[in-house]
């Protein structure tokens, strides 16, 4: 087993999973909604980026921007459908969960209908080639993915930590009524959260799709994995999500190398079941005070 390869794979996977899980986690803790349409956002963003590449420009920055923008807009759309009309209605958590599921079913079929079953490819944003880091070889793709997600993750975290909007989101994560009392508007903040997390999913989508491909249901597996990571990390905890992303990335890498690719999902789920049995609120459920 090659430790460099293992580390590189872990970091790549952790970066992508982190983007998805963080989005799910932030939405849960600030809006009290489990967004199972995050996978749909992922798929749509791929198509958004593809449309840009097809009709506007093949430039890497433009393609990434197309995906991120589509992601943000889709996030806002999901917020507009599943959050705004429901948040002050009875039984909100369950109904919004079902609404996001409905959106993802609806949206996935619409994508299939509009774009057809043939999968699409994105241009290589980072070009072809390899970098040798010591004994390990990493393609431009991988390095680009890691760097891009790391930048977006750091930007998001910094923004959450220090900006006025960020404070507002953090306040709402803790106590929505208290947030209203200091002047935080629930709806506008909710839309901001949905757009930021949508943008994260959009970026993750572009990064993954340019090594793989875009299809109407491409979001399902990333959603499941993002969910697993968010759960294992403890819904609502930023630190927990990041720790879990690294752990699960590592488990995936080491399972694939030592046992075989077909066991990846099995080990991942066994891991998360074990974590939840020991700590019902996930890794960070005990470290931080999260939304009940």
């Amino acid at each position, binding site marked *: 087993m090659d430790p460099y390869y293992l580390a590189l794979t872990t970091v790549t*996977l952790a970066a992508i999973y982190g983007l998805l899980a963080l989005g799910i986690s932030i939405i849960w803790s600030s809006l009290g909604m489990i967004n199972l349409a995050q996978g749909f956002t992922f798929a749509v963003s791929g198509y958004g980026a593809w449309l840009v590449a097809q009709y506007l420009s093949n430039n890497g920055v433009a393609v990434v921007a197309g995906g991120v923008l589509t992601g943000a807009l889709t996030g806002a759309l999901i917020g507009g459908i599943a959050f705004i009309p429901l948040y002050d209605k009875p039984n909100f958590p369950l109904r919004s969960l079902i609404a996001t599921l409905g959106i993802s079913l609806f949206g996935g079929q619409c994508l299939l209908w509009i774009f*057809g*079953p043939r999968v699409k*490819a994105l241009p290589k944003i980072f070009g*072809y080639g*390899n970098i040798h880091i010591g004994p390990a070889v990493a393609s431009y793709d991988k390095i680009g993915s890691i760097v891009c997600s790391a930048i977006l993750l750091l930007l998001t975290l910094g923004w959450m930590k220090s900006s006025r909007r960020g404070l507002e989101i953090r306040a709402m994560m803790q106590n929505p009524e208290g947030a209203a009392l200091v002047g935080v508007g629930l709806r506008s903040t909710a839309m901001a959260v949905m757009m930021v997390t949508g943008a994260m999913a959009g970026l993750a989508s572009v990064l993954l799709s340019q090594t793989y491909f875009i299809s109407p249901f491409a979001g399902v597996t990333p959603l499941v994995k993002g969910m697993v990571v968010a759960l294992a990390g403890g819904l609502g905890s930023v630190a927990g999500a990041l720790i879990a992303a690294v752990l699960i990335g590592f488990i995936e890498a080491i399972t694939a190398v030592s046992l075989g690719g*077909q066991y*990846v999902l099995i080990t991942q789920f066994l891991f998360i079941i074990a974590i939840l049995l020991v700590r019902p609120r996930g890794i960070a459920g005990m470290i931080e005070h999260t939304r009940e």
Partner: protein
Amino acid sequence: MTDRNWTPTRRTVVKGIGAALAAPLAAPYISTARADAAPIRFAVIAAQIADHTDYMNGAVLAVDEINAAGGIKGRKIVIEAHDIDLFTPEGTQAAFRKVADSKPHAIGCAFTLIRIPAVEALGDYKAPYLVGDTNFDLITETKSKREKYSHVFQVDPPEIYYGRMFPKFLETLAAGGEWKPINNKVHIIREQGNYNATIARELIATLPSSKFELGPITEIQYPVQDWGPALQAVKQSGAGVIMLDHWAGAEEAAFVQQFVADPVKGALVYVQYGPSQPEFLNIAAGAAEGIVWSTVLGVYDDAQGAEFRKKYAAKHSGVIGLCYNGSAYDTVNMLKNAWSNVDAEDLKGVADYVRTHVYRGVDGAVSLDNEYQAALHYPLQTEDLNKGMAQLYFQVQDGAHKIIQPTVLAESKFRKFPWA
């Protein structure tokens, strides 16, 4: 239907809803109407996946041609499209029952996944069912119940021949001198499904009798999110032949791209089936150069095949598929021959005609008059190109698929791949 791409439009959907609502009411009148002037109905079962779209396109092309030439004895052919939920047995059966209830003159399908429940659902309705399943289990089952499944035909050889043929292909290639294997190990990257497992099983059984030997086997599972471990395994084994035993063209393209970025020097890369779908070249683009692949059901490049390719390309832009479009085209023409000679209402007669008459189409010769009622594999089942369907080996050369084996049908010689 002249749509370039078969996707349901709003109008067809509205019509579909109308038809679905009206069907139970109108059914008795349709069946008692005079059949002579009524069109011949060909039911196509197609899901919303890429291969089925190809099939639909091929069928539409053939039907348009026949109708433009005046139809069959004055009767036009109409295609009745039926959607199917391929992944659940209930959904598959629902589609097949629906088709049987609509009582078409013949039924065509690219392939299903839950095959035995599917043919079971056709029940007592014995219109000829022509399918390109490439599946040995299906034809074994239908053979054991020949009476019940007399109308089930598989228009291509089963998948077992992929495995049995592969060592022969390598030996021929090596004997030709164009390719010098760096070693004789065959590294199999195997998807878990039945199709790929069967191919690998047959290959493993056949390898000892050839000069090649079995290398490591790496397991993968659809959908593949990360090719890293497989590529890592390939790097470590350093085998001279890498067989990607998978089926989804798009994923195989992703593999190829990542392999080419950091290849095993001199290793021959063989990719199972997927490149017959347009998405493979669309996605892999330049990276696919030099990749070898094969299909037991592929469009030839002889006069007949080339003409089909030309006609098809005129209707569908971009890279064209080389498998089910041709198969559907052949299926419709095969039925046309039958309907021209036997009354279309005589379902058994049509089925008998299809069984007893060898049809030479763009995908090769289909002869179904055998115990399995499945097309014969060339060269393993028959050495006669007019009886068997040749397994075509392609190599991607200059961004296009070129047949390199069997030699009689080859368009081009094997070339050194860029990472040699």
